[in-house]
């Protein structure tokens, strides 16, 4: 086929695809909703939820997870383009580790040594490790779909960011159920769960988000 003939075909195709921003804005809230309903339908919220709503350690879990999910969510449409022009924006992803570090430091400073290990091990570490990736499935699928429709310059990096978005959101949702509130527990098990999701995102995007 001649190039001018291809151009004639391209010019007649006016099907518009939504921009990465629009796609992310449309799909991710839905995915979060589904994941939230999934938690309520399976494990449910913790029984003492009403009593801990004002507890700083309970609220800290949302501070950490959302300080990861929100910056990653803002980065997602950008890493989905051929020319992301990230500059220093990727530094935003260090916000959550910093917040976590402060939380851990405060916990270590205020809680006696003997309590450290039991607090870090918690009551349901394995449950946490399983639930975070499970709740992340739908948000990750939505994020990867957004990447696939777009054209990420670096699919692996974009997939890792998609995983941080989904893992962060899933961890925030899981925090409603989880009764282990120590920053030590969060630093260990939440982090593992989120990093796992991020790795899965990177591996999947390497295949799915090529263009």
């Amino acid at each position, binding site marked *: *086929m*001649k*190039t*001018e*003939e*291809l*151009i*004639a*075909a*391209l*010019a*007649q*195709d*006016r*099907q*518009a*695809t*939504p*921009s*990465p921003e629009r796609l992310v804005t449309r799909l991710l809230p839905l995915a979060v909703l589904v994941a939230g309903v999934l938690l309520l339908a399976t494990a449910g919220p913790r029984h003492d939820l009403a009593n801990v709503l004002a507890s700083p350690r309970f609220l800290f879990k949302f501070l950490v997870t959302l300080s990861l999910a929100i910056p990653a969510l803002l980065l997602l449409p950008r890493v*989905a*383009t*051929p*020319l992301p022009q990230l500059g220093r924006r990727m530094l935003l992803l260090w916000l959550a580790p910093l917040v976590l570090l402060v939380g851990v430091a405060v916990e270590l400073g205020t809680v006696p040594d003997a309590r450290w290990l039991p607090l870090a091990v918690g009551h349901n570490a394995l449950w946490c490790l399983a639930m975070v990736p499970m709740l992340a499935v739908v948000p990750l699928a939505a994020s990867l779909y957004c990447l696939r429709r*777009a*054209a990420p*310059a670096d699919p692996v990096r974009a997939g890792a960011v998609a995983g941080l978005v989904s893992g962060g959101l899933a961890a925030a949702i899981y925090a409603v159920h989880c009764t282990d509130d120590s920053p030590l527990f969060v630093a260990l098990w939440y982090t593992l769960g989120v990093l796992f999701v991020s790795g899965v995102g990177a591996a999947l995007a390497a295949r799915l988000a*090529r*263009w």
Partner: protein
Amino acid sequence: MDSVQTADDWTLWMRQSLDGDEAAYRRLLAAVADRLRAQLRGRLARWGATDVEAEDVVQETLLAIHLKRHTWNRVERFEPWLAAVARNKLFDALRRRGRRVELPLEEVEASLADESEVAAGDESLDVSRLLSNLNERQQQIVRMVSVEGEAVREVAQKLQMSEVNVRVSLHRSLKALAALYRKGKE
């Protein structure tokens, strides 16, 4: 000065295209094709590729520009985005040839801004070959709007389909072509 002028034109034409100006879009794609052809022939010749292979890459890049144009932010200049897409497709082409190369983005952009003229002899084999993988109706529609240069409305009348269906089928065909290119690479 000249290349700055062109860059501004391209950005403007792309904005007009996104607003539904088909003539501006044709003009833009033709200009981009000429530029890519000039750039790719020289570059690929160094790797022992023929002009026909260069034309394949031109067409694959045009297809990518078209299918991914929504990832360009219209408040920015078009050329840097174009250079990034072109580089990606050139990498793919070279990878297909089993070569490893380092190619700085600046260089692609610089050579995109190069004004050298190249004759537009431009038959490519890949698209024609890949087209045969589509279903008959899709092949027919693509052939009518491309080779025969018909408008979607005429195609719809001749095939007794609705215009919407012709458009949907055309879009799917183009996406399928891009996917076939990708598959060929793996």
